[in-house]
């Protein structure tokens, strides 16, 4: 797709279950029990098991590479984890919605602003990516 300043990028919805968190813990090496133990999470004042912030960022990254049209287009990527993403212990889990808008385009680079919400609340703020605009993305 072409990227033009002001353009709204197609939203993505990602389902997140406890199984996803266990798989991500193993793949990433982040075994902090707040991401898999209800008992531990509540004992440190959290509402329950929460997703790894870096898992939420990874989902946003999937949206970004999709918008850029290339798996290697991301030049800079930053987020603030503004709220936890609680993940209930059921088959449905929760949903993270990722949306984006093109802030600017300069030559072969585009600046994207990303929003990510869970249950209507923003879980990422100040989320931005700089992507290389590939020929297929700009064509």
């Amino acid at each position, binding site marked *: 797709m072409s990227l033009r300043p002001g353009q709204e990028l197609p939203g993505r919805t990602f389902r997140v279950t406890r199984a996803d968190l266990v*798989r991500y813990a193993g793949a990433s*090496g982040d075994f902090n029990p707040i991401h898999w133990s209800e008992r531990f999470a509540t004992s440190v004042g959290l509402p329950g098991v929460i997703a790894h912030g870096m898992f939420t960022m*990874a989902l946003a990254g999937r949206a970004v590479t999709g918008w850029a049209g290339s798996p290697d287009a991301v030049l800079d990527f930053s987020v*603030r984890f503004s709220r936890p993403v609680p993940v209930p212990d059921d088959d449905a889990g929760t949903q993270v919605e990722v949306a984006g808008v093109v802030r600017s385009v300069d030559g072969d680079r585009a600046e994207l602003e990303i929003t990510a919400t869970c249950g209507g609340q923003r879980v990422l703020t100040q989320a931005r990516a700089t992507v290389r605009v590939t020929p297929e993305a700009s064509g």
Partner: protein
Amino acid sequence: MPLDRSFVGRQFPPTAPYQVCREKIREFATAIGADDPAYHDPEAARARGYPDVIAPPTFPTVVTMAASRQLIDDPALGMDYSRVVHGDQRFAYTRPVVAGDELVCTTTVEEITERGGHEFLTTRTEVTTPDGQPVVTAWSKLVVRG
């Protein structure tokens, strides 16, 4: 216990090289549901000019988180890890991580601040090849909840 402010500006010695293998990249990509062929199929990655599969953008966290234990596990810092949540994260890429890479992390404590009863610790980790070629720089802000 407050974080020891004397850590600000401290740079830790480079880590032993982390060997990035194809299966670790595939495992990570699968865990985040990233199905682009360049993350899984060496031929697809070669068609993009890379010697082997490339990693999704947040993969460097696998390497940098392990490296940050140098700092977090130092008892002199005084960090209660059970009270830590991730505040901010940024990556600035020179190129994607590629299977076969050996990655060395050099971590520096950039800042320790306090606000609203919470403490904030910002680190910068330069991820390079063993001969110092840059791959990605990662900034991480951890929040110690008061």
